[in-house]
């Protein structure tokens, strides 16, 4: 089908939910308002159509309101595959395995933090290494160069390892997707190069769109749910949000297996529409090896965010001279973006386990889901949506409708509108800094040029992408959050 014909075939089947004609084995389903749908690039649909032709794909090739071009499939995409007939593909997961968001609450208010924001951001900048090739924090000597057996424990145990080493609490684990540990992880499927890249990188932020932000609760859309999460209990409550993933470790796993799967395709006569979307049957030896290695990447990223959480707690304690308890530094939730996981859904009134790929997309489980515990069982899983450093972010919750309609998946962020090179030429660094200062945001970055790549105008309107999903009933808005301090790699 020609791309214009495909674009013209979309029909609105529900509020902000659009279905195309069948483009392979299944149609494409887009969750977005009319304006965002119209603005999505042609290649987004080409890539979603390629994914719709993959063996064993179920129901739809999904796009969300933040979708933009990716490698293999778009960022802001999801697809569920049959465990027997389906495939697994690194390109449909992403290079940065388990790139994700964590939100931490505090008991502090804007009035208490504002006078110390520079000191706080500077301390965090020092304690959470960011930028090109950054290594584990100086203060955490035990992490400076992990042995192979230590990294094996990290990769196979996930957050349990971090807890065992004193970097977190049981509650942190409860508030992490998959409780911070995938049992399928098998370090023997990870290459020597991945080990070498990852052994000095725990507790680091990275660069690009990875950031750490001090934010203030801006507006509530569901005070009851916010209060259940101990948020919005006090006026101008301060929270901490950050975005990072599995660093070089996860990237190496993805690079290694894309190459292996291209070889697998050649040997097995698979005609790939896009080499970046190379795959292997999920149940094949090659598919299982990647699944086990990728699960190591997922666990590594959970530990990375847990170590950063530890560093954030230490920074706040040293700046505010209070105990962790008094500061109320507790994890609200930790969500993953780039994953493939086995989950169970009801398809045509039958329970079925699927391998759900999410690339630049967030799990969105609703109230009552058996994977959720404590208060989350009543309110649904928190969905943390990071915006640009200028425009703010959102806290949402998952819905039953997402479980029924989109394999429990929703958007992950704003989605970019221009390339980094274009952003450098369009966004003036001095004006950007001035604008952020006017908005009351203190920024600490390695490079001002690098900072311009992440300016607000390089991204879609966060309000529009979040509202699109809210109106579609796939995730519900709880709070908007605005930045007051930002660290960029």
């Amino acid at each position, binding site marked *: 089908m020609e791309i214009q014909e495909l674009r013209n075939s979309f029909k609105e089947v529900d509020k902000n939910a659009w279905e195309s004609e069948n483009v392979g084995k299944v149609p494409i389903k887009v969750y977005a308002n009319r304006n965002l749908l119209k603005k999505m690039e042609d290649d987004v649909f080409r890539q979603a159509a390629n994914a719709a032709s993959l063996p064993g794909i179920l129901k739809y090739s999904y796009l969300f309101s933040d979708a*933009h071009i990716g490698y293999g499939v778009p960022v802001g995409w999801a697809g569920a595959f049959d465990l027997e007939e389906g495939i697994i593909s690194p390109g449909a997961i992403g290079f940065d395995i388990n790139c994700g968001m964590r939100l931490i609450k505090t008991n502090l208010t804007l009035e208490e933090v504002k006078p110390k924001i520079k000191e706080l951001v500077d301390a965090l900048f020092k304690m959470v290494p960011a*930028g090109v090739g950054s290594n584990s924090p100086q203060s955490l000597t035990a992490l400076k160069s992990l042995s192979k057996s230590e990294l094996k424990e990290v990769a196979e145990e996930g957050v349990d390892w971090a807890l065992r080493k004193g970097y977190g609490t049981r509650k942190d684990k409860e508030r992490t997707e998959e409780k911070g540990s995938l049992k399928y992880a098998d370090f023997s499927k990870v290459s020597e190069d991945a080990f*070498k890249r990852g052994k*000095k990188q725990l507790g680091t932020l990275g660069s690009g769109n990875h950031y750490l932000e001090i934010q203030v609760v801006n507006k509530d859309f569901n005070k009851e749910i916010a209060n259940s999460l101990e948020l919005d209990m006090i006026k101008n409550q301060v929270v901490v949000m950050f975005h990072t993933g599995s660093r070089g470790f996860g990237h190496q796993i993805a690079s290694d297996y894309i190459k292996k799967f291209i070889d697998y395709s050649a040997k097995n006569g698979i005609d790939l529409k896009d080499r970046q979307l190379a795959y292997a049957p999920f149940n094949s030896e090659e598919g299982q090896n990647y699944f086990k290695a990728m699960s190591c990447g997922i666990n590594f990223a959970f530990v990375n965010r847990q170590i950063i959480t530890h560093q954030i707690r230490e920074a706040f304690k040293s700046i505010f001279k209070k105990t962790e308890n008094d500061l109320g530094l507790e994890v609200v939730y930790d969500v993953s973006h780039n994953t493939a996981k086995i989950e169970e859904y009801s398809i045509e009134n039958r329970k079925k386990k699927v391998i759900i790929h999410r690339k630049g997309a967030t799990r969105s489980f609703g109230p009552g889901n058996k994977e959720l515990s404590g208060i989350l069982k009543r309110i649904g899983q928190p969905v943390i949506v990071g915006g640009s450093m200028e425009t703010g972010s959102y806290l949402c919750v998952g819905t039953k409708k997402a479980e029924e309609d989109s394999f429990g998946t929703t958007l992950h962020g704003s989605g970019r509108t221009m390339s980094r090179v274009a952003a450098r030429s369009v966004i003036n660094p001095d004006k950007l800094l001035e604008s952020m200062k006017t908005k009351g945001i203190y920024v600490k970055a*390695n490079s001002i040029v690098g900072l311009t790549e992440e300016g607000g105008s390089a991204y879609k309107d966060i309000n529009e992408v979040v509202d699109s999903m809210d109106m579609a009933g796939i995730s519900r808005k709880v709070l908007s959050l605005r930045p007051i301090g930002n660290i960029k790699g």
Partner: protein
Amino acid sequence: MERYRLLKNEATADIAFIAYGKNLAELFRNITIAVSNIMILNVKKGGNKKITFVMHDKSLDYLVIDFINKIVFYKDYKNIIITDARIKIDKNFNLHCSAVGENVRNLKDNFLVDVKAATLHDFKIKKEKGLIKCKIVLDV
């Protein structure tokens, strides 16, 4: 002759560039210079760290991708930004690289963005009027 050119209107989330070379050795050298300049603002060629490696691939496409991934590997593993390289490639795609670089710590004030992988997305390599042109998209 231009060594490389960054592409403004491609790779929405990442960075795309075209590298040029009169021969493969020059192309790979210019790719090295492009990748280091994408990571570090106005980085100078040279440095006191020396790295030598050999690699082989069954096609030129994969040799380019694996070569960039090797540069990325040394950045993470040894904390060295490779800034220049002398390359030898034979007709069977055996590559020998003698590279020089700088410790990441010494360049931290000029960090731009961390290159994490080379991709096959929209990868192109062709020879036109005696000049080899190679388009590469980097995941950052």
